[in-house]
C-alpha cells in the first residue's frame, strides 16, 4: 500500500463519515480503518533518510538493486 493509496482511502473514509448516512457500526469500522491508515501514512513519512541505490544487470539478464554510499 502506498502513501497515495493510504491518503486516497482516508479521504474516502472521511467523506463517508461526514456524509452522515452511515450506520454506527459501519462508522466505527470506518473510523478504525481510518486510524490504521493514518498511522501507516505517518510511519512511512517518518523514514529519516532517503535510500540511494543503483541498478546492475547480471550476466543472466536479471536486475539487481544495490546500495550506494551516501
Amino acid at each position, binding site marked *: 500500500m502506498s502513501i497515495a493509496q493510504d491518503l486516497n482511502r482516508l479521504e474516502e473514509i472521511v467523506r463517508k*463519515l461526514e456524509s452522515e448516512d452511515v450506520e454506527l457500526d459501519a462508522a466505527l469500522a470506518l473510523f478504525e480503518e481510518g486510524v490504521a491508515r493514518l498511522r501507516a501514512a505517518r510511519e512511512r513519512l517518518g523514514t529519516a533518510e*532517503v535510500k540511494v541505490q543503483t541498478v546492475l544487470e547480471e550476466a543472466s539478464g536479471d536486475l539487481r538493486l544495490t546500495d550506494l554510499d551516501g
Partner: protein
Amino acid sequence: MTNPLQLSFDPADDAWSVTKLVTSVKRLIEAEFVPVWIRGEVVGCKVWSSGHWYFSLRDRITQVRCTMWSRYTYQAGKPPEDGTEVFVLARPGIYDSKGEFHLSVTRLIPTAAVGAAQKELERVKEALRKDGLFDEARKRPIPPFASTVAVVTSTAGAAMRDVITVVGKRWPCCRILVVNALVRALKLVTRVPEVELCIVGRGGGGRDDLNAFNSEAVCRALAAVKVPTISAVGHETDISLTDLVADLRAPTPSAAAEMAVSDRREVLRQIDDLGARLAGGLSSRTRLGAVRLARTGDRLQAAMDRAIRRERHRADRLGAQLDALSPLRILDRGYAVPVDPDGRVLKRLADFAPGAPFRLRIADGDVAARVEQS
C-alpha cells in the same frame, strides 16, 4: 639638484616598476572579462609534449596569442590546422613573465563542426516531431508521492548529488535509483517495476557534453520510459531535445527534485487535517446515536453529552494523539456491549435465549445479566 629634463616630478621617486605595471593591467583585464566566445582563424598551432597547445587566433586586422592547457585540449580532438576557422571559449589575460596579452582557451570547436551539429540537431528534431514525441497529449502528470525515483545521468557527478540532497530533505521516505550512461540506464530503469518517476540529467557541471541530450537514441529511449519523466539538463540558454520529449522540463537538477516529490511537512499537515475530520466525522455519528438513546433516560443523555463534548475537545487537539481514539473508547460514552460467557458479541435477537446468562461490557468492567424474555 637641477633637473636637466625640466620635469615636474622626480622619476626616481615616481616611476612604476615593470612588474607593477604588468600586474595592474593584468588585474584590470581579468576583473573585466568573463570567458567569452571568439570566432577566428587558427595559425601556427604548436603541440607540446605536455599536451598543451599554443597558437594564434587571427582575423583580417589583428591577431592574439592563445594557450590551451592539456586538461582542455584532450576534449578538443585533433590540433587545428592552419587556416581552420574556429570558435574558442577563452578568457583574456596577461603573461606575467613576458607582459604579453593572450587568451586562455578552454574550448575550441571548428565552425564547420558547429554547422554540421546544427544540421544533425534539426534532422533529429524533425524526426522526433514527426513521430509525435513532442506532443502535449503524451505528457503525463508527475505522481505526487513517488516511493521510488530513478535518476539517470550522463556521467557520475555533482549536479545529480543536488537531486539526492533535495529529495532527501523533502521526501526522505523515498528510494532513489541512480544509474549512469543514458541510453543503457533508461532501458534498465524501465525494467524496474517499483520505479514511479524518472529524472534524466547531466551528472556533472558545464564541461559535460550537452549533445548527448540532443541525440536521437537518448530521446527515443526517454520516450520509451513507462513512467513520467523530468528532463533536468540544466542549461539556461538552450533547450535540449530531452526537454521536449520529457513530461516535464526543469531548469536545474535541484528544481527537478522539487518538482519530483512532495514536501513531507505539507503532507503531514494534510494528514493532520484528515485526522481531525475523521474524529469529527465519528463524533457526529455518535451524536446521532445519542439522540436516539436519549429517549431511554436522562442519565444516559447526560453521559452522552459529556462524551460528545469530550470527543469534540479531543478532535480539536487530535494530531499525534489519534491512537487514543480507539473505537473501544465508545464504551466511555455509555454504550454497553453484550457478550456471551465465551466473550462473543451478541448482536441479534437470536443470540439471546430466554433465561440465558450473559455479561454487559461497559467502560470500567462488566456486569452479569440474564435474558428475561426475548
